[in-house]
């Protein structure tokens, strides 16, 4: 019999390998499991060879668990660790924005839970087509409501993220969600099954026909005989309430030492959970599939095995602990069922109503998937793009032109206030949020007594990465790093989500290789480990791949969160300094895009040494309590940063546009050079700041003073804060209601 391997997304060679591994034709259920486990999504078959660079980075002592686990774990204080990871849910969010985004949050939260951590915060990085495109009006409100609906209902403060508009994402929005968790170091859980005779427990929702998309070919083949339904929903509906009680239940199981291994069930469902836990533990498992509680009784084995029903966890429990574990689940109202046990056979055997439907070595599913070195080729248009430098674009010259440009940029979709979005997110719940939107990084207190806490930022820039993927990835890293540094934290670890087009397109594959190389080199330069991440391929609008978009998350530690530096000017009379060097850098800039719809040239230069020195000054200055405010410079340059500092608390500023080498006020205001920040300093602390900057070799320029209710660029323009506020605040409400 010919099996429909191609309809399942398997290549002929892959199918032959399965037959060889088993020494026979696979059963339907086995074939379905291989198809999902060897898919790009689960096996990372196209990306593996590139991602190795991250694993090869020097490991830091603080790293308790690195790549390969559900999420990396870093120790941040004696006996206290955090775990964090970012993941994409792009395609589901296009099909059904609310549920796609909601289940994206749900999925990453379970990854964090699986490490033994209590989830304590989320961030979300969102990208949509043009702000005024009709489809954006369909997608954005749903995505935002979904991120909020799920996170709010779980009681997780949302402490940061991004909202970016660009036509490149019109048919393919990006929804990347990050979750942060905290755990006592000794509670760290691993996703491996061990202990022959230990019981396999399924916790959480009923298993339904969710997300079995691809393998439904097999299911419908089976169904045609029985006359059952053949159309399968590919959309999953989130149930945050169930996730909330599953979280509380699992945390109690961990605290009482009742589980020896735990794994979340997400992509590829039980197929993935069972084979990975068994393979990691080097053990076998015998599963009675009929014990799995179902939403629809007519489901067949391959559907049960590959169902991606949300809000489920798999726990390995010693026989003597099963009763206690079930009692904990009952107390929280969580459905819990023993579905099998760990065996010494080394094989994953699945029974279904007296019949063996699966009998395979678990490692063949989890580890022996194909690995490809896909062909790569530098995109043909890259030289032309690089040659189209922005130098020739008409620039604002007069004071009035500069004022108009400033106001226009402040109100442009990528630079305007995000409050329409962020007001839909609870930032207060749990009572430990020290900084959240619109600050540069989210800051969460972990220890009320000592004030120990962490800072997190999530950044990316698809335009920079389009122009130069290597530099673009590094700029994303540099920006997230800088955002964490300016609040006063010491950067400690990196996570990332790499969103690109199809790996079968050599040009995309080249971009991907450059991105990973750039990120790995950047992390090496900064001395930071990559603790985990996610790859999302096949992102395109029509036939055109999206601008390659690495989204990078950086986590930093603060010994005392009370010393954080916020972005807003709070007091008049403080000196305003610009730290870092400004160059005439406009390639991929917001100005070129907004004013000229231009994308070309080179992105800003990356200098990790300069980033480190700037970070050193910010951290030291925060420790010494020198700064009234600090804000990093990124999209929109100095002008945008100053506006944000002024609008935060309604305190204006007067600044000199003459920044030495960048004497042109246009360059001074709008260039997007990296490794820069503005800070406000009370006069008595100025001298000390100078000393710090000199010691570290960070250029520091006193550019003005805070105060008043205008932003004044001396000799150029004077803009009332009220005008800036109107421009800044009005854009998203006008677009989205």
């Amino acid at each position, binding site marked *: 019999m010919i099996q429909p391997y191609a309809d399942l997304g398997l290549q002929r060679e892959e199918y032959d390998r399965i037959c060889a591994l088993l020494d026979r034709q696979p059963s339907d259920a086995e074939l379905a499991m291989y198809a999902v486990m060897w898919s790009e999504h689960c096996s990372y078959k196209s990306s593996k060879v590139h991602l190795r660079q991250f694993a090869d980075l020097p490991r830091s002592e603080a790293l308790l668990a690195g790549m390969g686990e559900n999420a990396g774990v870093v120790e941040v204080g004696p006996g206290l660790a955090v775990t964090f990871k970012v993941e994409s849910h792009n395609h589901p969010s296009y099909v059904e924005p609310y549920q796609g985004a909601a289940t994206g949050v749900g999925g990453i939260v379970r990854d964090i839970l699986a490490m033994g951590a209590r989830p304590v915060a989320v961030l979300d990085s969102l990208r949509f087509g043009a702000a005024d495109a009709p489809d954006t009006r369909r997608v954005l409100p749903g995505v935002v409501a979904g991120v909020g*609906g799920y996170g709010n*209902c779980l009681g997780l403060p949302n402490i940061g993220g991004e909202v970016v508009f660009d036509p490149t994402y019109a048919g393919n929005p990006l929804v990347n969600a990050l979750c942060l968790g905290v755990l006592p170091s000794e509670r760290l859980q691993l996703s491996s099954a061990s202990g022959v005779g230990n019981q396999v427990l399924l916790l959480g929702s009923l298993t339904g026909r969710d997300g079995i998309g691809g393998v439904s070919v097999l299911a419908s083949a089976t169904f045609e005989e029985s006359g059952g339904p053949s159309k399968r929903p590919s959309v999953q509906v989130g149930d945050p*309430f169930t996730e909330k009680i599953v979280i509380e239940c699992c945390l109690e199981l961990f605290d009482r030492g009742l589980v020896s291994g735990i794994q979340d069930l997400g992509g590829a469902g039980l197929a993935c959970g069972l084979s990975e836990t068994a393979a990691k533990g080097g053990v076998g498992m015998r599963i009675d599939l009929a014990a799995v509680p179902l939403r629809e009784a007519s489901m067949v084995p391959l559907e049960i095995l590959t169902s991606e029903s949300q809000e489920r966890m798999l726990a390995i429990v010693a026989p003597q602990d099963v009763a206690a574990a079930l009692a904990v689940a009952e107390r929280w109202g969580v459905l819990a069922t023993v579905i099998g046990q760990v065996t010494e056979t080394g094989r994953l055997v699945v029974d279904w109503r007296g019949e063996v439907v699966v009998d395979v070595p678990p490692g063949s599913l989890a580890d022996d998937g194909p690995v490809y070195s896909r062909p790569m080729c530098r995109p043909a248009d890259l030289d032309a793009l690089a040659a189209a430098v922005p130098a020739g674009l008409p620039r604002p010259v007069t004071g009035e032109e500069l004022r108009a440009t400033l106001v226009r940029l402040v109100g442009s979709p990528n630079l305007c206030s995000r409050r329409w979005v*962020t007001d*839909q997110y609870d*930032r207060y*719940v749990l*009572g430990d949020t020290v900084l959240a939107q619109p600050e540069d990084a989210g800051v969460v207190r972990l220890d009320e007594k000592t004030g120990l806490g962490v800072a997190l930022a999530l950044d990316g820039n698809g335009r920079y990465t389009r122009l130069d993927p290597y530099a673009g990835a590094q700029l994303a890293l540099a920006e997230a790093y800088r955002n964490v540094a300016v609040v006063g934290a010491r950067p400690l670890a990196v996570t990332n989500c790499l969103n690109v087009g199809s790996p079968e397109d050599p040009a995309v594959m080249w971009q991907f290789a450059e991105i990973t190389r750039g990120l790995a080199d950047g992390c090496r330069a900064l001395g930071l480990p990559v603790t985990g991440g996610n790859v999302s391929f096949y992102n395109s609008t029509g036939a055109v791949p999206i601008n390659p978009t690495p989204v990078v998350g950086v986590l930093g530690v603060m010994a005392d969160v*009370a010393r954080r530096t916020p972005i807003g000017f709070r007091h008049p009379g403080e000196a305003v300094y610009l730290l870092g060097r400004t160059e005439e850098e406009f390639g991929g800039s917001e100005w070129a895009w907004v004013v000229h719809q231009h994308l070309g040239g080179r992105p800003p230069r990356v200098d990790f040494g300069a980033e480190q020195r700037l970070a050193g000054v910010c951290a030291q200055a925060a420790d010494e309590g020198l700064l009234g405010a600090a804000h990093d410079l990124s999209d929109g340059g100095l002008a945008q940063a100053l506006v944000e500092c002024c609008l935060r608390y309604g305190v204006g500023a007067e600044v000199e546009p003459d920044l030495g080498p960048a004497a042109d006020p246009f360059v001074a205001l709008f260039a997007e050079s990296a490794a820069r920040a503005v800070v406000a300093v009370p006069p008595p602390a100025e001298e000390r700041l100078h000393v710090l900057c000199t010691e570290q070799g960070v250029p520091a320029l006193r550019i003005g003073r805070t105060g008043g209710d205008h932003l004044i660029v001396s000799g150029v323009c004077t803009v009332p804060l009220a005008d800036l506020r109107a421009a800044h605040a009005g854009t998203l409400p006008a677009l989205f209601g």
Partner: protein
Amino acid sequence: MPGRIGVVTFPGSLDDRDARRAVRRAGGTPVALWHAEEDLHGVDAVILPGGFSYGDYLRCGAIARFAPIMRVVVDGARDGLPVLGICNGFQILCEAHLLPGALIRNVGRRFGCVDQPLIVGNAATAWTSAYTSGQRIVVPLKNGEGCYLADERVLDELEATGRVVARYAVDDEHPDPNGSARAIAGVCNPDGTVVGLMPHPEHAVEALTGPGQDGLGFFTSILGAVPGVLAGR
């Protein structure tokens, strides 16, 4: 003996830990109460915290209202036990008919999280004595279903008898957050012992993590009102 204030945890309660912290910061002793137990553990007052009990799936508070603990909370409240319902807790109190009216979806039909200025309407309740009537305070407001409704007769009566505990201060910078009738943010029973409040004072008890400390007064008020504390002073 500092006042012992019970905080109920329902499945899906989210701000229970924060309410306990607020009690502690105000100088009281928080006592965790479990929804499935019909036992108040001798507490002096009870807080029903914010969150999404049972996912708020049917109607906010509709399922939590039937939790075993609510039997003793309702009986206690009828006998003078002070009860504060915050957000979801307010919704539960309305569903349980301890307070009049209902909370429906915000007129803007979106969840909103803002630092909300309020005007204290009645500083004589068990939970607001630390304030003065007419005082303006800023407290986080975060909900999707915070639009307070009751029929006109009930509203008139609430106003006439001073049972509007707090109102949203609406001005140019602070638009109406949810469309509540007569900008009502909180109401109380005739004795002023049972208070329902949509905003979250427990998130305004320290400057580091809230918009300020304006919310602390709700917790110091009750500690001043309960017999345990009075006896101790």
